[in-house]
């Protein structure tokens, strides 16, 4: 049985709710996300300077950024970065690493099978499911339209 919403009360309560600091959050997200991207660009430049063609440098860059995300999660620093930087920290691939490593660390105490194995994808699972799903749909569209 769904609960009746007390519309008058919820309107009264909304008056006391502090506003989300959208602009401040946007500025911080720009700073954190921008810094992560600059680091990514430096890593790419490093690989290019060491003989990788620009088109192939993206893969090793992703590996390094995931490694850094995992390292900073392990050091207990990545969650602080996201707390202030929001999507600026979550959206880059290092944030994906955080979403994988955090549950791996958290559920270690419940064992390798029922803990880490079963709960590794609790945060990243939806991203993978819908990411792969939409990739499939886009691929299908390209197959039909592109041929």
């Amino acid at each position, binding site marked *: 049985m769904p609960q009746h919403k007390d519309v008058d009360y919820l309107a009264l309560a909304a008056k006391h709710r502090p506003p989300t600091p959208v602009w401040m959050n946007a500025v911080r997200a720009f700073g954190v996300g921008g810094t992560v991207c600059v680091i990514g660009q430096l890593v790419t430049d490093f690989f290019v300077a060491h003989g990788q063609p620009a088109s192939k440098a993206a893969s090793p860059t992703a590996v390094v950024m995931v490694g850094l995300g995992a390292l900073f999660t392990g050091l*207990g620093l990545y969650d602080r970065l996201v707390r202030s930087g929001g999507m600026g920290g979550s959206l880059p691939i290092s944030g994906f690493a955080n979403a994988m490593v955090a549950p791996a660390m958290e559920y270690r105490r419940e064992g390798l099978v029922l803990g880490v194995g079963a709960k590794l994808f609790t945060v990243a699972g939806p991203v993978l499911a819908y990411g792969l799903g939409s990739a499939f749909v886009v691929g299908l569209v390209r197959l039909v339209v592109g041929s």
Partner: protein
Amino acid sequence: MSASTRHFEHVAVVGHFAIGGVREGQGPLGPIFDHIWRDDLAGERTWEAAEGKMAVQAVEGAAHGAGWQLGDVDVVVGGDLLDQLVSTNFAARQHQQPTLGVFAACASFAEAVGLAGLWCEGGSARAVAGAWSHHLAVERQFRFPIEFGYQRTPTASWTATAAGALAVTPGSGRVQLRAFTVGRVVDPGSTDPMDMGTAMAPAAWDSLQRHLRAVDGDWGQYDRVFTGDLGVVGSAILCDLAHDDTFSRVHDDCGRSLYRPDQDVHNGGSGTGCVAAVVAGHIVPRIEAGDWRRVLVAATGALFSPTSYQQGESIPAVAHVIELQAGRS
């Protein structure tokens, strides 16, 4: 007097013990704690075990405060937020005193104290009532893995790592348990699990009004009226609902008092242990010291689970009220 309020003539609070975690110890109420943990695991292997250890320490501390040995305690009434009340029950496995586990989310403490009062009224029992919560154990159960980064909204509360327990027995003491009102479950239809203040304020107001009618009192007779963990937002809503200057003057909130604004806790503290620690470490000692004569505590609890809100259910809440008064001795 309404039958959902019980008046106690001869129930005394004779011992109290409050424990705070690292962050709580650094807050403005740091000095009230009888014991502050230096690290969050306290030598245990898991957060859940650490919460159980906190429960044992709180029960033992309250018993000793009353001049009892742990083995003298006839009944322990306690509650926590973890599934199947594991910390309360695992603590009972260790302390081996007869135990009643209670659950009313963050209102569990008032329920425990009220039941201990009922147990003692007219008997000769020595009861300890308490509640405990560990931020990291609760966080992983209700929200995300600890190291996962996400941005908390301005209305989000911070589950306190804290515990509090009272030793209660028939008789007269410096602090008397005067009355206990059982709350109704009230649900205004709020669905945001990051905004407990909005979900719980109507339950707090409902129980406080019912208590006041039952004891035929008025707000001016109280030195303080504490709510459990409405926080900054819920307290503002409650005072708006009350629309009464006297009430706003005497009202305070345990969760709002627990941290400084710069401790990044947004709406303030919450959790079963929050109100328990503030009552055991702050309110009861202030009554003992003669600073306050009559204090109401409405412990507020949001009765949702991760499953219920994922299924789109709104968040029901309850508030149980206990009244404490300075005794004659």
